[in-house]
């Protein structure tokens, strides 16, 4: 487990970084489970709403949005495929994502081409994730 500024980043999964996305992804029985990471949860604040607006996204496409009292953003799919399940519990109570972003997944996707996971925007491992998060924090400080 990587911890930076009290934000946890489990190292048993990958992270999608394109377009400022802060999504984690895991593979499970041929399906890809997606969620927001602790950085996205911390930036948004207590989530009040999220919606999934796409059914069969292409890689890099926005598949929905999440919102808090003062912040709104999109979330993106790292892979092309079909959304086969949405976490209805998290949709009904988005604060579950704040409470534990790595349990409260958002969608499950059946990928069209699993080789798309070999992308420069999908990272894993302590060194790469740490470097990425520190760079993101630096950008925030410069704002």
């Amino acid at each position, binding site marked *: 487990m990587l911890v930076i500024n009290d934000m946890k980043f489990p190292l048993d999964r990958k992270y999608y970084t394109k377009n400022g996305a802060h999504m984690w992804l895991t593979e499970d029985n041929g399906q890809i489970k997606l969620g927001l990471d602790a950085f996205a*949860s*911390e*930036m*948004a*604040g*207590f989530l009040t*709403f999220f919606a999934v607006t796409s059914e069969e996204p292409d890689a890099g496409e926005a598949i929905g*949005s999440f*919102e*808090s*009292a*003062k*912040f*709104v953003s999109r979330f993106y799919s790292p892979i092309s495929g079909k959304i086969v399940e949405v976490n209805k519990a998290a949709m009904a109570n988005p604060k579950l994502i*704040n409470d534990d972003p790595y349990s409260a997944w958002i969608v499950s996707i059946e990928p069209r081409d699993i080789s798309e996971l070999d992308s420069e925007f999908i990272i894993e491992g302590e060194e790469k994730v740490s470097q990425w998060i520190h760079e993101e924090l630096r950008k*925030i400080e410069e*704002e």
Partner: protein
Amino acid sequence: MESPGFVRISTAAAMTLKLVPGKFNRGEKLGCLNLLIHYDEGCRANCSYCGLSDTRDAVTEDPSSDTFIRVDWPLVEIDDIIRRANEHAPHLQRVCVSMITHNKSFDDMISIMKKFKEETDLSISGLIAPTMMMDIDSAFKIKKAGADMIGVAIDAATPELFDEMRGSGVMGPHSWDHYWEVLDWCVDVFGKGMVGIHIIVGLGETEEEMISVIQKAQDKGAKTHLFSFFPEGGSSMSKWLQPSYGRYRRVQLARYIINEEISDMDQMKFDSEGQLIDFGININPIVNEGIAFMTSGCSGSDGMVACNRPYGNERPSNPIRNYAFIPEERDVKQIWSQIFDYTE
């Protein structure tokens, strides 16, 4: 955990003081800490649109029923707020202490103001509850405590709406005439331009009635701080709609023209339904500048609005009603598309 030791603070203030996570959608910086006096008994008034109403449905499954002006207001110890304001928020310029209708509220507001005066460099505003103020000495006491600006939340634009929503219509204690009398006391004590009325657009008034009350306040030496009605879950007006963007933009622009003394209401024309159809001056440069559509509120030392209330009246996924920053080109383009839209 009650005032004066504790107060409620807005979500924006809690974020700014790093009490809760979150950042503002477009990188806005909060200019004013908004504090709300708190007692377990609550507010003694019944204003029909208000999240603090004594009669608001407290037992509901609607999670938005715990909100006030759209968001949560966590309860925080005053000493913690002051320590965090001094440590974390150099961009803060002002603190506003808001009374509620409760017999302890005035004295506790005074003691909180004194504490901020002694322990911070922030300018101080008081958002007063006139029903709890009986004479002009009250205004002198607020000034002596360290406040330099005052807000009077009249909220409803006409005496009829005021009485219906805040007075006899809801078995409430408030009186239109007394509110304006207290406003006069405050202008006498604090000076012209140092007092503002809060008015909520969308409580059933026409644009002409709204602009008339803005002009009335201006003639008395008070500015207007505009709010857009937001239906509070659990309140008796929870099913009402927000005012249209067209209506809100026209009122914002008229307010700016009147408060900046560019022109006055006499030059404006209204249709038979009270909609503003002609501002009487060339509005192009004013709209393009964008400042008219920024949040209106108490100012900071730079003369710009300190009380900028980011996303105070709308969800961040909706078009902004009160800009907490000077609108950018894309914002001005959107404002132009809204301002002459007369559909409700």
